[in-house]
């Protein structure tokens, strides 16, 4: 039964996530909130593993979530659910590729879809930030504002931001380099 539900949830994600692998992220948060199959925190870890392993990130995340939810059958079913709409849509389009590319409605729809996709991913980013950089539970327990901030994490985020955006020699490096470095920092400074 859970396999059927997994397939359905990932089929929906595959059908409505427009704009590549990262666009599936808001759907994974949505699934987590509605089903409780995995926590938001766990999802952040799964994103990290999906970015640091071979394969398209959207497929990797589907496999991981499926595995966490229902083992190996879950991994297979979630991934197949994600790609089934793609296969159906692409085979339909492939018959009339040129007409699709030049269709004014398609272009107009994407004018609205692109900012939507970025808005959804930004909201997913906000959720990860809330978990990784802030301690909402500690703040709720003590009521002191100083407990809200995870200063070590915020410092690391600032350094990473500068490294990935401003330092010329580091900017082009693969994300796995930064992920591994962050893991080391996490262990050394006891995050």
């Amino acid at each position, binding site marked *: 039964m859970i396999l059927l539900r997994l397939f359905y949830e990932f089929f929906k994600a595959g059908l409505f996530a427009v704009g590549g692998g990262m666009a599936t992220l808001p759907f994974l948060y949505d699934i987590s909130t509605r089903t409780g199959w995995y926590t938001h925190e766990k999802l952040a870890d799964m994103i990290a593993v999906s970015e640091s392993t071979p394969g*398209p990130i959207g497929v990797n995340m589907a496999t991981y979530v499926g595995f966490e939810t229902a083992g190996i059958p879950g991994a297979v079913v979630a991934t197949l659910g994600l790609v089934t709409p793609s296969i159906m849509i692409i085979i339909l389009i492939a018959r009339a590729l040129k007409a699709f590319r030049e269709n004014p409605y398609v272009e*107009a729809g994407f004018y609205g879809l692109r900012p939507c996709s970025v808005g959804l991913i930004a909201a997913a980013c906000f959720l990860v930030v809330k978990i990784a950089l802030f301690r909402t539970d500690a703040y709720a327990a003590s009521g002191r504002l100083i407990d809200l901030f995870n200063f070590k994490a915020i410092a690391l985020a600032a350094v990473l931001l500068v490294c990935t955006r401003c330092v010329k020699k580091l900017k082009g490096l693969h994300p796995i380099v930064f992920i591994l470095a962050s893991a080391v920092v996490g262990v050394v*400074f006891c995050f």
Partner: protein
Amino acid sequence: MKQLWKLFLAFARVGVMTFGGGYAMIPILEREIVDRHGWATEEELMDYYAVGQCTPGVIAVNTATFIGYKVAGTVGGVVATLGMIFPSLVIITLIAGILTNFADVPAVKSAFAGIRVCVCVLIFNAVLKLWKKAVVDKITLVLFLGVFLLSVFFDISPIVFVVFCAAAGIVLTRMGVKGK
């Protein structure tokens, strides 16, 4: 049958060699599909990739389906996609299986707390990159802000936003207000 097996293997190779998908995949696709097998020209590949970006789903999978379909029809499309996802299934299942056993080790917990910070930054960078192509005028800025704020503060399915914004894009373009 032999052709299908070749398709499966070629895309499994692309899957293994791609880290993160997206643009990193293009040179590898070119080598496998254009140079090695001659299944498509470079121009066709770019077309597939462009359409793959603006259709629902993972871009790598969409591109694989296109090429598979061109080479061997519907079955080809399915086989190419299965090839593409096969390495992910194996690798992620292995890693997930191992990590589950070590999830409670304190050092692993600390490592992942550090990694989570990095994930914030990586997603933030992805947002900035996509932003440049997506938010091109006041209307798209309003759509972006609306979707962002509503989905942060309310529990609304992403599907609602996707359907609404696609419709808004079509209606607004029809009304001739695009670009203001």
